[in-house]
């Protein structure tokens, strides 16, 4: 034992081994979490996004004016007295017809976030299930399901959504339906590819040998293993949905008054820039860009954290 310099440490290690104390293992998600936390841009974006969300929840309690009220005293001269001001309670100024932009921005932000989250959720639920079943079942069913996606994906969805909005009433529900119809297509392709890779792994074979039915295998064994890809793609889908909604609202074909969205507010603001009412464009635009860029950063951070291939 002469060569051991630190007999106490050796003893401690021996104790550890005797007690069968293990080094605590880290799961894939803990590992990913650790990497995500070190990504400054992504963490900053999460904080900013949480701040905006908090603002849409708490903001209304500080509003002096509602989103529908018209400030009759100032509406005739919005360019001069409609600027953002703390004194008269219009923190973000007035819009072109004299409504409080503060309340309208909160409402619009909430609508846009909702569209993004609902669109992405539909994509996650339908896309994951569809892709996983298609990939797992295989054969002619897989072929038929994927050819259907091929056909649907080639349809310029924006025009179909606009058609839906024009023919049926222009409501939030219709917008959700329209966006939900198309948002899951890419997701189903991605998930199918991942499922094909997983399908012949040993643990799936073990489940099969144990007599587990195919639907249970898909839901209980395949889908949890797809979550990494799904989470990354869903995060990147949210800004896409927000942009799609804003596009439709910008054309004046989206949500209807008195409801509003960031796209509709940007459209309003873009219509009045020649009258020196630039805040009407700048404020909703700032919210839009902040949300979209933050989501990009978060999605990127998640991809770096969850996809070991890119490291």
């Amino acid at each position, binding site marked *: 034992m002469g060569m051991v310099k630190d007999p106490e440490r050796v003893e401690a290690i021996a104790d550890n081994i005797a007690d069968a104390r293990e080094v605590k293992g880290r799961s894939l998600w803990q590992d990913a979490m650790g990497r995500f936390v070190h990504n400054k841009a992504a963490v900053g974006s999460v904080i900013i996004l949480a701040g905006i969300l908090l603002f849409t929840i708490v903001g209304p309690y500080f509003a002096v004016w509602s989103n529908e009220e018209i400030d009759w005293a100032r509406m005739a001269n919005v360019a001069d007295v409609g600027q953002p001001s703390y004194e008269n309670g219009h923190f973000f100024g007035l819009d072109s017809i004299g409504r409080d932009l503060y309340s309208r921005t909160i409402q619009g932000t909430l609508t846009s976030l909702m569209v993004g989250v609902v669109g992405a959720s539909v994509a996650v639920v339908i896309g994951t299930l569809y892709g996983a079943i298609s990939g797992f079942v295989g054969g002619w069913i897989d072929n038929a399901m994927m050819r259907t996606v091929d*056909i649907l994906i080639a349809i*310029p969805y*924006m*025009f179909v959504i606009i*058609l839906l909005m024009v023919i049926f009433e222009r409501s939030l529900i219709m917008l959700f339906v329209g966006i939900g119809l198309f948002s899951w297509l890419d997701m189903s392709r991605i998930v199918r590819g991942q499922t094909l890779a997983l399908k012949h792994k040993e643990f799936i074979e073990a489940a099969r040998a144990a007599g587990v039915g195919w639907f249970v295998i898909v839901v209980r064994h395949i889908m949890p293993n797809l979550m990494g890809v799904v989470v990354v793609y869903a995060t990147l889908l949210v800004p896409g949905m927000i942009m799609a909604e804003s596009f439709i609202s910008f*054309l004046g074909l989206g949500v209807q008054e008195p409801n509003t969205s960031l796209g509709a507010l*940007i459209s309003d603001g873009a219509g009045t820039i020649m009258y020196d009412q630039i805040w009407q464009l700048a404020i909703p635009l700032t919210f839009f860009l902040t949300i979209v860029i933050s989501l990009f950063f978060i999605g990127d951070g998640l991809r770096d954290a969850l996809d070991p291939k890119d490291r």
Partner: protein
Amino acid sequence: MLNYVIRRLLVAVPTLLILIIICFYLMQTAPGGPFTSERPLPPQVLANIEAKYGLDQPHYKQLYNYVVGIVTQFDFGPSYQYKDRSVNDIISQGFPVTLTYGFISFVVATIVGVSLGVIAAIRHNTALDYIAVGATFSAQALPNFVMAPILIYVFTLKLGLLPGGGWNGGQWQYLIMPVIALSTSFFASVARITRSSMLEVLNSNFIRTARAKGLPETTIIWRHALKPTLMPVVSYLGPAFVGMITGSVVIDIYFSTGGIGRFYVNSALNRDYAVMLGLTILYGGLTVLFNLLTDLLYAWLDPKIRY
């Protein structure tokens, strides 16, 4: 290759048919016929008008006539709102404009995007690379409807350099802002795809071999690395084109360029279903055609794909 072309066509045709069928039946479910107005027409007159447009026939027959009209005569049908203007008139009037700035934007986005991506990849992890990555990252968040008002505010209202709208036969002053607005988010995406693809290619074995042979760096980039780099870019061109077609609607509205988009949105706001149907199918046809072309280009370029 021929086999592959035929197979792709077999997907493209049903895609178009399904689009037509969906749109056609959506229109049928729309509340009110094209000739319902506040003061109802006498039933005899209504019947006559409907007979003229073939609306008294059963739906499937109308659909059949419509599809046959498009295929055999390229006839997208009449406008029920403006008797003197058919969908074909709108197309012949607006399409050249949309096509002009759309094509220029497409070329600009591709060339600028690829160059930026290649430069960023060659100068990987230098200040230039970081600037390019940062710029493209933010530019992706700038879709056409955000760029358009910003451009007009800066270049027309503040600097007074460019006309705020109009077409004027496509003079270059009138083209600049539509092209920038339409191409920004796409050149950003192209640049990002090019950069990551180039980085991957530059790390591959055949580039190391070329370096070991002592080839100059420019030859390596131009002769060896560029072609495989462009493969993912080519497959992005399809979606990019669709995005530009869609974006042209915003350009036509905001810059008053006189392209199809203005008619499209007006028909949507006026519930001129016939025009909406015709233009949606036109946009859809362009999409399918272009997706087909990029797929074929991809298959032709990529030696690994042989069908």
